């Protein structure tokens, strides 16, 4: 799968150069970095500019804009619009809802939650998937049968329906699985749900690759040298999967973010008072006629983040494997699995 090392440069630096030549991808990588910086700056903005936290309510308060006093939330329940720097940075983007919270602060903190959940879920799913794929592809036989069947079952579950139900059940009662306990309001619940459903996405194509790789000569050689299964799996096979894993991980972050947003929209994801871009869109959609920005801002943020990740992931695939053979196998397997047509599971490429 990886290219033969050229005489002067290792395959990784070659890949890096190919990536850097794709100016579109570099630009979007930059955008992604900007977004991350934006959300990490949340406490700075909250404490020094807006002077309020993401959950503090100012329903009956007034702010002074250019000398005039204005209601944060009008008597009929209309939240104030973007003030930019008119009130010294408070309510820069206006108030978020009838609870009168600072939209800019919430946008930043919400982004943190969305990114945290997306990245964590993708990470957990990738690690679990790689381990399962290695086990299945290397040991084959009944191990493979068991793992493949389980993945099939998860795969065939009406993803959104079960994810939604599970999310709601967990939101009420939390999770108690032996020693593992997650309280009901925690962000770990949506992470848990998203990870479970993301695993088959990654595990199936990688399993295919492991199956193919484990028949290659270098594996035979390692076994002949007396390497145990763990060594073969992790030292010989795994490095060859590296590029596929990287690409999938990137794309799965985008996928997870969209999935979380969908779950939160239906009340099965992030629970108040925590907020994410998904919950903000829910609130914003209700107030769409009054203040369209409240739905559009978080929506655009999700879109830009997912877009950047998709483009970067796509470019990574191009850079790491220009011949495209593995891409064909991996992408077909990856895409040849239904349930991603509607964006609820975020079709990534």
């Amino acid at each position: 799968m990886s290219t033969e090392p050229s005489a002067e440069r290792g395959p990784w630096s070659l890949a890096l150069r190919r990536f850097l030549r794709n100016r579109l991808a570099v630009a979007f990588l930059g955008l992604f970095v900007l977004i991350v910086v934006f959300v990490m700056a949340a406490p700075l903005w909250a404490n020094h500019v807006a002077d309020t936290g993401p959950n503090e309510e100012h329903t009956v308060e007034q702010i002074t804009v250019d000398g005039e006093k204005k209601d944060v939330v009008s008597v009929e329940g209309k939240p104030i619009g973007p003030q930019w720097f008119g009130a010294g940075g408070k309510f820069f983007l206006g108030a978020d809802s009838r609870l009168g919270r600072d939209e800019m602060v919430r946008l930043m903190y919400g982004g943190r939650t969305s990114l945290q959940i997306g990245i964590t879920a993708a990470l957990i799913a990738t690690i679990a998937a790689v381990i399962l794929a290695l086990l299945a592809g290397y040991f084959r036989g009944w191990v493979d049968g068991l793992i493949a069947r389980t993945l099939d079952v998860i795969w065939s579950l009406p993803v959104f329906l079960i994810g939604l139900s599970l999310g709601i059940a967990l939101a009420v009662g939390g999770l108690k699985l032996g020693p593992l306990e997650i309280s009901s309001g925690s962000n770990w619940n949506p992470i848990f749900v998203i990870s479970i459903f993301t695993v088959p996405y990654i595990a199936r194509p990688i399993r295919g690759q492991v199956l193919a790789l484990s028949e290659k000569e270098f594996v035979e050689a390692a076994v002949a040298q007396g390497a145990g299964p763990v060594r073969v799996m992790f030292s010989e096979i795994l490095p060859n999967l590296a590029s596929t894993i990287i690409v999938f991980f990137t794309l799965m972050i985008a996928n997870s973010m969209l999935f979380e947003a969908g779950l939160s929209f239906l009340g099965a994801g992030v629970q108040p008072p925590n907020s994410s871009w998904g919950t903000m869109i829910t609130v914003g959609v209700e107030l769409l006629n009054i203040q369209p920005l409240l739905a559009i801002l978080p929506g655009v943020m999700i879109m830009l983040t997912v877009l950047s990740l998709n483009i970067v992931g796509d470019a990574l695939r191009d850079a790491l494997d220009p011949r495209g053979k593995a891409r064909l196998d991996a992408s077909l397997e990856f895409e040849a699995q239904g349930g991603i047509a509607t964006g609820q599971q975020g079709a990534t490429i």
Partner: protein
Amino acid sequence: MKKLGAVIAVLVLAALSTIGLASCGGGDDTTGSGEGGGKQGGTLNATYASFPDYMDPALSYTAEGWSAMADVYTPLLTYKHANGEEGSEVIPGLAKELPKISNDGKTYTLFLRPGLKYSDGTPVKASDFPFAVERMIQLNSGGSPFYLTIDGAEQFAKTKKGPIPGIKTNDKTGEIVINLEGPRGTFTNELGLMFVAPLPQDTPVEDMSANPPPGTGPYMITKSQPGKGWEYERNPYWAKANGKAMPDLPEGSIDSAKVTVIRNPQSQVDDIEQGTYDWMQNPPPSSRYTEVKEKYEGTQFRVEPTISTYYFWMNTQEPPFDDVKVRQAVNYAVDSKALERIYAGQIVGTQQILPPGMPGYEQFELYPHNMDRAEELMKEANPSDTDITVWTDTESPNNEAGEYFNEVLKELGFNTKLKILNADNYFTVIGNATTPDLDAGWSDWFQDYPHPNDFFQPLLAGESILPTNNGNFAKFDNSAVNKKIKELGAEQLGPEQESAYKELDEEIMEEAPWAPYGTRTLSTFVSDAIDLESVIFNPTFGHYLSSFEFK
């Protein structure tokens, strides 16, 4: 390539403009002036945001259901078809007069009017009443607890083997005699609910939501598609028989009605504005409410008061809310003004158990908003346990009210955890004693009928604290109050009782088990084809189908 592009562009434009033209002109599906443009007749196109819980009079226990079936099923007694407080008056329905009640309050005697018929032509018999009561209990209806004081009804509920000894009827004379185990001041009101509307005795004892049974009202349901919609036509036997026998009840102006469930309330508002639909049963969503009110009030829109109380309850049996000072502090801290904004003006602030419109209501204000006083009280009380869980449901704006309450408690120094539950399960979960950490939360209560006991007994009486399906979330158990509730509940409602209820209201609020914050307004929003003035909204049954008239 270029030429092809131009051709395509023209075609697309043409297609779009055709659609645009079509929608501009064809938006009006109303057959409003169906019968020659007059006031009488026509087909009402209505929309509800959800299908009622049941389309069966014995089972339905929601505003949608009651509003849908109010003019289809007439019980022995009914409520005056009038707006506001007038609509709280109980009047005879299928019975000739209001019941004669014995001196000990345990025996009710009524006479069925002769000559009444169901919409399928079956004559109405006195024995149809106990049949309906038994059917309701056999179906495990949520309304059955109202009728368990009837002699032998509890036993019947357990064994499902009848007949119920407490109801005796005579089909020849039409006499119906009901014996109760003890006096019950609310029984007259309860006889006016559809749970016990008489039905033909061949009605199957199962949920008839997909095929509603025949009724005695001016309209009948001709088609029911659960989840999607239903249709009404005039009941032919109203004109022939029932209408003449019950002249005080309106016969209705429209000939038929078609109700479609449209789940998106924004769509509903657009449809009414465009005239595609004539009436939406639920109020406009908060985001359109102000705009609709400003544009159409007086011509197509009217605010309707309800008899309801929205409140925050506090668990009086566990710290920190077992200290009355803490509870009073909360009452001082909650600001109805903020909540009015959160509800976009659809809440009118109050701080009492009974809402305006309920007999026995008289305004008083024990805890005007005062954050300083609240903090003072908190300092005096100095609770040791400040970790609390706050509960609310997902339905907007109740979830926002819950978030507001959460923040208020935080300001008072509590360490809070907010739990927001699915609206359909919310009351079951907080009503279950095994749910941990039921410290404080949101709730609301809409009257079942206009009698103050309907608020005090299920929500604040000690005997109402149940291990499951609890309604007394504050777990309030005050023996003096319990005694008063029981006494007043056995008496028939008169001016004496009303002032006693007002005192009870104040007495309880001094103990502050709740922080009530408002009463909800609903609304009437119709298209411009409908005469707004004629529409009647009854606080118990909602909008009457028989009150809609085309201009």
